[in-house]
């Protein structure tokens, strides 16, 4: 089959095109039960679109867990370029750089630019540790952002919201959205139909995964309360460098792999941080994600592709 964006993509084509050279396992979540094997059983539907997510590229990281984080970011971008269907755009869910240094931002921009896609960023905590505490990030990526960097946009009937939960963190706490951002979110959602599909993306997970490691967001319940009336809400995060999913009512949460290094699963190590794995295993734990939206489908189809099998 061919997979050409300019012809539009029906559900069947989209699903087939998502299996990049057999590199990924397709699955969706329905009511908390993962399902697979949809290929061939889907019926033609209206044209939707797809987008890709990358996360935690940590450009500048050069420690034993991955001495060349820029190199694996380039490999991730190569995966996106090689995809049979061109995505509508890319999102990056933060920790673009390791230390917020100008050269690291430059290297990341150059590598990600090879995908030749519009990129919507949110910062991770590693992107706001310049002297100006986030000024360097905002100067590059904050043109359309409010506050410390939050914003929203629309794509073919889907409302995308980029949230920021990595600044003004409090001692002993986790990620933080803050009242100003929550107030903006309430206004951003006001007047939108309950049937509008919503995609929220942020760096730190918006559900509590491991409070002892700070893997959660203090006031995420307030944001989720504002989203509760919508029939389809997809929440995409990074930060924890591993895949995790959860379904709660109409909301599905997905954390993404890093393109730089894995981290341990909660409870399996005394602390989070870069996890050293045998060299041959590293690329199996790094990857990119593609997300397909089909009008009328309650859930977006999420496929995670590792850099190597």
């Amino acid at each position: 089959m061919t997979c050409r964006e300019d012809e539009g993509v029906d559900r069947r084509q989209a699903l087939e095109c998502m299996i990049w050279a057999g590199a990924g396992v397709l699955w969706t979540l329905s009511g908390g039960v993962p399902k697979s094997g949809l290929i061939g059983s889907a019926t033609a539907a209206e044209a939707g679109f797809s987008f890709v997510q990358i996360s935690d590229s940590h450009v500048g990281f050069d420690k034993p867990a991955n001495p060349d984080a820029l190199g694996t970011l380039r490999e991730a971008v190569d995966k996106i370029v090689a995809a049979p269907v061109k995505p509508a755009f890319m999102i990056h869910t933060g920790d673009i750089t390791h230390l917020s240094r100008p050269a690291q931002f430059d290297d990341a921009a150059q590598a990600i630019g090879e995908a030749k896609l519009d990129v919507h960023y949110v910062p991770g905590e590693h992107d706001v540790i310049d002297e100006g505490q986030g000024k360097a990030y905002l100067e590059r990526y904050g043109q359309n952002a409010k506050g410390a960097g939050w914003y929203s946009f629309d794509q073919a009937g889907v409302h995308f919201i980029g949230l920021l939960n990595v600044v003004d963190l409090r001692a002993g706490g986790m990620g933080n959205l803050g009242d100003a951002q929550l107030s903006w979110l309430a206004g951003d959602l006001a007047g939108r139909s309950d049937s509008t599909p919503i995609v929220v993306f942020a760096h730190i997970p918006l559900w509590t995964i491991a409070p002892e490691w700070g893997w959660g967001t203090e006031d995420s319940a307030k944001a989720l309360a504002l989203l509760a009336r919508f029939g389809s809400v997809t929440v995409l995060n990074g930060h924890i460098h591993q895949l995790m999913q959860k379904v709660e009512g109409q909301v599905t949460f997905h954390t993404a792999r890093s393109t730089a290094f894995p981290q341990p699963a909660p409870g399996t190590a005394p602390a989070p941080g870069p996890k050293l794995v045998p060299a041959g295993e590293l690329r199996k734990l790094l990857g990119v994600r593609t997300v397909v939206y089909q009008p009328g489908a309650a859930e977006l189809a999420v496929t995670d592709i590792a850099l190597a099998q």
Partner: protein
Amino acid sequence: MNRTYSRRASLSLAATLVFIRVQLARAEEAEVGIDNFSFTPAELTVKPGATVIFENHDDVPHLVVTVDGKHRSKALDTDDRFSVAFDEPGEYAYFCALHPHMKGKIIVAP
């Protein structure tokens, strides 16, 4: 005369030594290591005027900030150090601004 001179010299030397000892006491240093996303020791007691040196041994950056906001390090990459002099007695709670579950306390007491 020689004897008097010698005694004066001794007194002078003693005074100098006392002065040096005072200087050494004033320059007390203590170190807090950052290992595995923890401050070690998590609670440290020092004399007024002591300098506390934070040193990051992790392969990710940390950023030390006191809860009162008066002291804030740069992002500390691996092996980077951050020194703070604590002159006034009191308790200074601090945390990592990047990983706020990491907490510690400096107690400054005479």
